[in-house]
């Protein structure tokens, strides 16, 4: 199989995630897009691990997964906090600070 098959698939997922984080208003949906971006990176890492014949790719991916879990956890905590204070998780309304 071609290495680029995987890499390009990852690139597609990455860019879709980017599109998502820019356009989604709902906080939880932004978090979902972030997960997609991180997954894209994981595909890259594992594919390169296979390409180079080393387990480091998978190791790296595992670290990313662990960190992503932590990140999504606190991301959700912050989203919930904002929801409690604002009764809304519309990120486009979170713009008190600017200038």
């Amino acid at each position, binding site marked *: *199989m071609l290495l680029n098959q995987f890499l390009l698939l990852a690139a597609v997922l*990455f860019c879709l*995630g980017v599109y998502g*984080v820019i356009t989604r208003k709902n906080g939880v949906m*932004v978090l979902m897009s*972030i997960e997609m*971006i*991180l997954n*894209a*990176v994981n595909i*890259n*890492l594992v*594919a*390169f*691990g296979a*390409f*180079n*014949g*080393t387990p*480091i*790719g998978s*190791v*790296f991916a595992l*670290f*990313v997964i662990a*960190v992503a879990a*932590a*990140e999504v956890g*606190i*991301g959700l*905590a*912050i*989203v919930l*906090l*904002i929801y409690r*204070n*604002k009764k809304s998780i519309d*990120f486009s309304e*979170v*713009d*008190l*600070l*600017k*200038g």
Partner: protein
Amino acid sequence: MDFTALAGLPVADVVAFTRPAIDWHAVAPELILLGFGALLTLIDVIFLDRAKQYTAALAGVGLLATMVPILTLANDISETGPRVMFDGAFVVDEFALIMKAVFILSGYVVILLSTNYIGEGDYWESEYYGLMLSSILGMVVMASSRDLISIFVAFELLSIPSYMLATWKKRSLESNEAGLKYYLMGVFASAIMLYGMSLLFGVSGETILTKVNASLTSDPLTGDALSSSTPILTLGIIFVIVGFAFKVSAAPFHSWAPDTYSGAPIPVTAFLAVASKIAGFVALVQLVFVGFYARADVFQPLMWILAAASMIIGNLVALRQTDIVRLMAYSGVAQAGFILAPLAVAGDVGDQALSSIVSYLAIYAAMNLGAFAVILAAARKTGSTSIESMNGLFSYAPGLAVAMTIFMFALAGIPPLGGWFAKFQIFFAVVEQGGTWAILLGVLLAVNSVIALYYYAAVARRIWADEAPNGDLTPIRIPASLSAALVLTVVATLVFGFLPGSISQFTDVGLIAGG
């Protein structure tokens, strides 16, 4: 492709596991910090509210205790050379130790700043300090990381607690927003950085920076020597650097900084603006000097652009700020531009660029923490961080006014205060290289230091020249810990300026040991 694994067919491979040799002395700072963090959590769990008043002190003691192995290591290393562990993933050299010391000391000052703020503000205390310690642990680990995975994890370890610290004023919408923005931008930045790391890992098959560096000079497929970079390498290097450019709030990746700084609790802002930013620079320095050094044709132009953009954008926008914390944020963007400047010539004048950056970081920590200490103290009375709230500070708090003037002029680079030496060394390193682009960057540095003076001096002018709001001249009660922080930073700023040798003898480090 092999589906045998899926089918579960046994394959009799045998792999040896070698227990890695661990140099306990070299990891002692991390372990002590970890121990105090755990202790803090345990005490909180066991004694609950009864221990609340001691948590700040315990955190402070923990940081100071961490300085002990750092000093003994420094002594050791000067005789035996750098300690390298885990195939070069973890290195304790002069650079690492200096930066660790800077992190620990600035963390200590931040804790001094936090003591009354957090205690009086009815915030979660022991968790606050616990998270602060774990973030500092991340920084300390970062200073020794010479490996992509370690750098990534250290980056996350120092970032994730600070996302939460920025949100710590839970009932304040501004604080929530500050935390959210910081969190989201941080996650996006780490995503970009990870993508870049994946590409670099892909072409080299390694994560140890020295090995990555070695692989950058030859084509990953053919093994031919590369005269210039390939798109894939360029993309990888740039994406990794962008991730840290976010952390150091370099333009155009600075947009989170002003918003986060102005919304977060002020001690946390000081922490983000100083310790966290320095950690970003430490990572950048390690990446550039160890990981990408062979690809100066990529990182130099990139750093040039980032430095120039940061200086210009940071300074220009700072001119229009009305909030002192936002002003500090934009000034921080401009300062980041200054610190990035030597990296734009690092390929040619490596040692000098490195030591100028290290000096700048140490001096920057003192000046900026001091400025935030004054802002914090002034806000105790005025309850506001608008620049107007600094008006007439001199008439009711002359000590603070003098201190703030010192910090402002130091930040502006007026000799003989600390900042001048920092700026001077940067300028010196950049011009030393001597090429057209370096000279142009030097001119930009000079011009920007003048622009910066406008807003720094404007703050000083308000302090001295304007009337206090409502003619209220009641003095500010400054708690002991805050005074201690002020004294420390003022002394450091003055000493670094008058006796630059006091800092340059430490920061005069050679190229970083890569393991």
